Structures are given as structure tokens and as C-alpha cells.
């Protein structure tokens, strides 16, 4: 009995995880313990102890974080990094057969850069070219691991929907994408059409679900019927109907947000998050009533007509109406300083420190349904932690260390040292190449 228990414990812990104590830090837990000066103990990849006075466990690695700040790992609810071969299957209006899981690129340097910006988990979304887009999932930024090892275990997968200008191919009335020279129209070309596409897709999905439900019932009765055809496109929507897949909806305007809520209510599913949702402050009550979260930008707008009527108070206003609000990046660069994005929610709207920090930690965790294991510094949660040299909601804060599951994946000091060695190795390889094969030099052609 004891043996099996021990084996189970060993199996559970990540390989390199050791016992670590981070001492003398200002710990911003975004959890029940609030903010205090003290220690956090990490054991077997989990947070084992949190408090002002904590005994140093035997054999623990001590990190003295005097003058530094410790926060939960940052979670980005909207990212497009770490994908191979395009994140937009923009050829069709319903592309729910495609799955980000199939094209995770663990070599994408944006993962490491996000990690160096304190991000430990990111929701990797399909693009917004389709009314119903592809299947999505959250990853942990375990840089150096394989694609499968980056997947956030146990997280509910998602699917991307999109409303407005992108799915109706605004600015590209032919609807053609992917370098074709042949003008080809793609339905829909209006917002009415976007709604229709979503409704029609779910009509099909319901027929498909009924077929499978009948089959499953027959099998349960011990019969041996011929299984229906598996349709990957409808299968994903069937999972939405069964609450097994979260719907993340790209949107901007108030009217389309209300449309989406009506459609979801009619069809019988819940929108998990509205993404971008720049006019969310206008319909915050309705969003809250539906139970959806909102994941928005701090102050990024006006890049197209539908993104005009935005205000920096959006995040805080929606939060005050009872919506779980997060701030996301949608961008590999913005992703590296989500901490200061959160800081803007304090300036605009007057969120407290904890409320602002929650917008990039606990709230996105709630939106992704992973708040039982990440999002705040609580005993028993994954040891996903970020150590900053100064107040983390400031532009001047620099990330010192990032831990995921108790393993240090980014260490600023070590990185600075390693950089020199990498540069030297690079130079060596370039020189070796130059020496071994004189390059064929292309002819410089005049510009045409």
C-alpha cells in the first residue's frame, strides 16, 4: 500500500522538480492570503506552503528574493504563437475540423520570449477568418519540451468563433485567401451572413449529434449497428453542445455581441469568453447575465472601423458589472509585457492592484477553466511563479525567474551568461561554414 502510494507520488511529480523555498519576497498571491512579505515553498511541482514565517524544508534550494516581487504565472487568454503552417484555415466559413493541437511548434522562439515576460500559460487560438474557426487549447510555456509536453493537461479544449469584419472578409470582397489569383467569393459577406453560418452549422451539428446519440443508445442496448460517419467538423460542434468544448468568440461591436448571445441561447450552448470585445462596456450587463467572460485589450484599438468605439476603461467597467475580465495579447510582442498591460487597468477605471493583476492571472485561469490548478498562489496549485525585481505592474519591472510546475524555465542571470556562449558557438559555426564551402554568390539584379 505504502509502496504504491510512493510510486504514485513519484509518477505525479515532474522530473526536475525539487524542493524550493523563495524567501523574503513580496508575495502577491491574487488569492486568499492577499499580498504579504514572506515565503513560498515549492514541492513536487506544487505550491506546498505560503506564509510570512515558513521553516526552510530540509534539502530545499533557497532563493533569496529580498526586495523582489513574486506573482502567479501570467496567463494569456488569446495568443497565436507556437503554431506551424498558419493559424488561419481561412478557406471556408466553418473550419472546425482543424485543430491547433496538430500543429504545435515547440521551437517557436516566441514561447521563450513570452516566458521571459512572465507568461506561463497561453491559450493558443485559431485565427478569426471564419464564423466558426478551428479547435484550440491552452499550452504551458515549457520551453525545451516537446509539443505534447507543452499541452496543459486536463484543460477543456476550446473553439474559436469570429464575428464582424474578419469572417465577412471585409476589405477582401472576393473572399479569396492564400495567394490565389482567381477571385472566388466566400459566403458570408455580411454580418447577417455570419449569424446564418453559425446557426446553419449548429443545425447540422444537431442532426449529427442525434445520429450518434441513437447509435450510442443502440450500442448500450447490446446491439451492433453500423457506426455513423465521423465528421471532424461537426464533431467539434457536437462537443460544444455537450459542454465539452469552450467557445471563444472574437468580437468588437455591441450589436454582434448581443447577436451571439441570442444565437447561443437559441441553440443551447454557452459562450465561454468574448475576445477583444472592445464595446463590451456597452453591453456588460447582458454579457454578465449570459455568464460569459470577457478578454480584452488595455488600450489597443482603431486599427479598423469596427474597432473604433473603444475606451481604456473597458476592462474595469466590465469587471464592475460582474464579468470575469482578462487582458490578453493577441500578439507575440505584447505578450511579453502583459504585466504592464494589467497596470493600465489601475490608471483607467481604478482597479486595485489585486484586481489588475487578476486580469492576467486568476481571471484568464477562470475563463479557461483551469483556476483549480493555476492563476493564484495557493497551497496545492501548480508552482507557476514569476519573480520580478520590482513592483510587477510597472513598466520598469524586469522578470528575474519564471517557474512552471516548480521547474525554473527562465532565469535572467543564467540567460545573460549563456548568451555569450551561444554567440560564440554561432560565430564558430558561421566561420566553419564559410571555410568549408565558398558560397555561390547571387548576381545583384536591378530592381524591377
Amino acid at each position: 500500500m505504502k509502496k504504491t502510494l510512493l510510486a504514485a507520488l513519484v509518477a505525479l511529480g515532474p522530473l526536475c522538480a525539487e524542493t524550493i523555498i523563495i524567501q523574503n519576497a513580496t508575495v502577491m498571491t491574487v488569492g486568499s492570503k492577499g499580498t504579504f512579505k514572506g515565503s513560498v515553498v515549492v514541492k513536487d511541482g506544487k505550491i506546498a506552503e505560503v506564509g510570512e514565517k515558513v521553516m526552510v524544508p530540509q534539502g530545499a534550494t533557497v532563493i533569496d528574493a529580498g526586495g523582489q516581487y513574486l506573482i502567479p504565472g501570467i496567463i494569456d487568454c488569446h495568443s497565436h504563437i507556437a503554431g506551424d503552417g498558419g493559424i488561419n484555415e481561412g478557406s471556408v466559413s466553418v473550419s472546425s475540423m482543424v485543430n491547433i493541437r496538430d500543429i504545435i511548434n515547440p521551437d517557436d522562439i516566441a514561447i521563450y520570449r513570452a516566458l521571459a515576460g512572465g507568461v506561463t500559460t497561453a491559450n493558443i487560438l485559431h485565427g478569426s477568418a471564419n464564423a466558426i474557426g478551428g479547435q484550440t487549447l491552452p499550452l504551458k510555456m515549457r520551453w525545451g519540451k516537446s509539443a505534447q509536453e507543452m499541452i496543459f493537461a486536463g484543460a477543456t479544449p476550446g473553439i474559436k468563433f469570429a464575428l464582424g469584419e474578419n469572417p465577412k472578409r471585409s476589405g477582401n470582397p472576393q473572399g479569396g485567401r492564400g495567394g490565389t489569383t482567381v477571385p472566388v467569393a466566400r459566403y458570408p459577406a455580411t454580418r447577417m451572413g455570419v449569424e446564418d453560418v453559425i446557426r446553419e452549422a449548429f443545425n447540422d451539428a444537431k442532426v449529427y449529434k442525434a445520429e450518434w446519440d441513437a447509435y450510442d443508445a443502440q450500442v448500450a442496448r447490446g446491439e451492433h449497428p453500423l457506426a455513423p460517419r465521423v465528421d471532424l467538423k461537426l464533431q467539434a460542434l457536437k462537443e460544444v453542445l455537450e459542454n465539452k468544448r469552450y467557445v471563444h468568440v472574437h468580437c468588437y461591436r455591441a450589436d454582434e455581441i448581443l447577436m451571439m448571445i441570442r444565437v447561443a441561447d437559441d441553440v443551447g450552448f454557452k459562450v465561454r469568453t468574448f475576445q477583444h470585445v472592445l464595446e463590451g462596456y456597452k453591453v456588460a450587463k447582458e454579457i454578465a447575465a449570459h455568464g460569459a467572460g470577457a478578454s480584452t485589450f488595455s488600450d489597443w484599438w482603431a486599427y479598423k472601423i469596427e474597432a473604433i468605439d473603444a475606451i481604456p476603461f473597458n476592462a474595469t467597467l466590465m469587471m464592475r458589472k460582474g464579468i470575469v475580465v482578462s487582458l490578453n495579447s493577441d500578439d507575440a510582442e505584447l505578450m511579453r509585457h502583459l504585466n504592464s498591460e494589467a497596470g493600465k487597468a489601475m490608471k483607467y477605471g481604478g482597479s486595485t492592484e489585486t484586481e489588475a493583476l487578476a486580469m492576467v492571472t486568476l481571471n484568464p485561469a477562470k475563463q479557461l477553466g483551469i483556476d483549480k490548478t493555476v492563476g493564484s498562489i495557493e497551497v496545492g496549485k501548480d508552482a507557476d511563479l514569476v519573480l520580478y525585481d520590482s513592483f510587477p505592474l510597472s513598466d520598469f519591472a524586469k522578470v528575474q525567474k519564471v517557474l512552471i510546475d516548480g521547474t525554473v524555465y527562465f532565469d535572467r542571470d543564467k540567460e545573460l551568461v549563456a548568451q555569450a556562449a551561444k554567440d560564440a558557438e554561432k560565430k564558430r559555426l558561421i566561420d566553419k561554414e564559410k571555410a568549408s564551402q565558398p558560397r555561390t554568390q547571387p548576381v545583384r539584379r536591378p530592381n524591377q
Partner: protein
Amino acid sequence: MAEVPSTVAIRNAKIVTVSGPVIAKGTVIVRGGLIEAVGENVPVPADAWVVDGEGMTVYPGLIDGLSTVGIAGAAPAAAAAGGGRGGRGVAATPATPAAPAAPAAPAERSMGPEDRPQTTSWLLAADEIQAGDRRVETVRGAGITTAVTFPTRGIFGGQGSIIDLVSGEKAAEMILVPAAGQYIAFGRGGGFGGGGGGGGFPISLMGIIAYVRQVYLDADHYRLVKEAYAKDPRGMQRPEYDRALEGVLASKRILLPANRLAEIDRMLRFGAELKQPMILYGARDAYLPEAADLLKKANATVLLSLKWPTPPARLPDEEDTDTLRVLEERDKAPTAPAVLQKAGVKYALYSDGLDAPRDFQRAVKKAIDNGLSREDALRALTLSPAEIYGVADRVGSIEKGKIANLVLTKGDIFDDRTTVVMVFVDGKKYTPAETAAPGGRGAAADDPGPGGNR
């Protein structure tokens, strides 16, 4: 061109049999296109045309495990170069009328998997082979006598065929095995002429993967429904004939592209999901211990491209902006064969469009310079590809009863200054027009000539 003495005796030559020990000095008898005998003390038949092999080495004919030779208009490269790219250039010159030609009309725009975009899975290379393809002669100059040649357009290109590189009147003479497996490429769709892409589904890698997955799910379902119908058609709607699925079901193995470590990992998982015996082709990152480890654990079969990565052409004043990872890859890629060999992974080398004998030989030599033994290099181009395609009982080594595919060289077959003196395919003798030697002397000078019994 081919000489056709029905019986040939090559004597006094060093014979590298591959399947057995090297014979320092021996004789090979070829009769009726087959190897009649091989050994140290084999009597020369009275009717034989005798080749004095003094100072020469006889090897089994080389086998190129992934090629497009014999298929007119096909891109020379077999489409594994470059991450994620597939049979790109192929689209530019449609080779056969089977696929709709460019430009695609709006009506042809694929709206989903049901439209079977960029799919010609039912094609057989054997039906596309053109007897007069000049590339047959070119690649034979490197000692390649057998090629597994594939239609490479689109996503499901069709089934490859194993062919012997004889120059004959009829393509049918070349066919060894008509159906050798389905070729799948992840070329970016959406272009015109890519087998009916027309900007339609799929245009992303995840779209292509989803499509391939759906096709295999459909094939599985199609088979079940067809079986049920065959058993008792009464009261059952007949399943609609689907040539794309017929082509997939007729393929006994699939070839999937994978170059980077992440792609190798991805395709090993994907292939397992498709429940078909698979071959990974490309495998540029196989030099990484992690990659070799993954391949070994999955008991994978690999076709390793001989087209080693090279630096991109740059202007003289242009800086090298490649990442450390890319630089490492270029440095280490040619060690991949040695790494796979050591790890015990089942693999073969393939030309990947290196048609010119000199380029091909240099590429193999580079692998040898990077740790692969000469014996292993030879095996990876003879018996190993024969085993991978299940034809080791007829080609791949010098053994009694096997097809008389032989290469006669002066010098080691993969050396820089080796001369390929003669090539036998199906017992027919060919003299390479050009040798592989850099700055090469013409092989004709070494040609003993017909009846040259010296």
C-alpha cells in the same frame, strides 16, 4: 545505350554482395536478366560474353527509395526539402491530364474534405511512367538501377511504383511492383493548378492534417459499409463509389513528410492514428539524439534525404542571420545516417532530386565523412530500401536468383573520383555517358566495348 547479350560473365572482379561477405576476386554470371551464379570459383559458360573485371568492383544496383524519375514533367526534387513545404514546384507543370489543369474555375474551389481537394490517391505511377524519360539515363549514371517513383502532385499524390531503370520501348518493361504505397505531401494548397485547389480548403498545415485525418476516417467507414453491403445488399442503400477512398484503401503503406524534430514527433503520432504502415521521408533532424530516440521507440521506418541543407544564397555584403539552431542543423545534418545506424533505426537513403551523378555521389560521401561506414552507406542504398518496400527477395544484393541489377566501378562506388564503368539493369548492359568524377573523364574511354573480352 543498352547492349543485350543474354549471358554475361563478369570475372576477376571484387564483388560486394551486401547480403554476404565481400568476394575479393570472383565471378558473377548473368543470364536472362537474372543472376545465375556468384562466387570465387564459378565456371564461365561457353556462350557468355565475358567482362574482365580486373581492378573493378561489382556492386548491387542502387535503389532510390523516393523519386519521380520516369514521370514526365514531375519536379526532380521529391518534395521533402524545406519545413512544411511539399510538392510545390510540381504544381507549375501539370504532368497528366488526370488532375484539373490550372487555372481553377470558381466552381472547383474546394469547400471542405468532401470535395477531396488535391487528391489523386487512385493514380499509380506505373500508369504514368514514360519510357523515354531522359532522367532515367542520367540517374543510372550514378549506379541507380531501381527507383521507387511517385506521382507527387497535391496532398494525396497517388501510389508509387518500383521500377527498374531500363531504357526500353515500353514503360511496362520497367515495372517491378506497380503499387508501392501512397505519397502524401503537406504542400501549401490554395495555389492554382495544385490539383483543383483554387484557393479552397485546405490552405493551412492544420487544414491539410485535418483533411488527411478525415479521409482515413472516411476510408475506414467506407470499407465497413461496403463490407456490410456485400454481405447483404437487400434493404440497404448502396454505398456511393469514392475513387479517392478506393485509392487510399488500395495502398498498403503511406509516406509522410517530416523534417524537423517537431515534425517527426508530430508525424509519428499522426501515422499511428491513421493505422497504416508508414514511412517518414525527409528526416533532416534525424541527427538529433532525441529524434533518433523517438524513431527507435516508435519502431519507425525512415527515408532520409541526401539533400543536405545548405546556406541560402546571399549577396556578398549580406550578413548571416540564421539562428543558432539552423546553423547547427546545417552543420550536423549529414551525421544523421550514422546516428540512425547507431540507434538501430530502419532507414534508407534517397536522392531527393539529386539527379546529377556527381551531386548524388558527393552527398553520400558527405554522410561517410560524417561517420557512416561505407558498408552501411551501401546497404542504405541497396538492401535496406529493398527490405522497406518488401522486394529484398528480388533486388538489393548480389545473390543467385535475384534480378541482375549490377554496377561496375573503378574505385569505391561513393568516392569522389570513382568511375562507373558499366551498369546492368535486368541484365541489360548500359555504359554511362558521363562519369561521376568531378571534371570527369568520359566513361567511354574505359568501355571495353561490346565483345571486348580483354
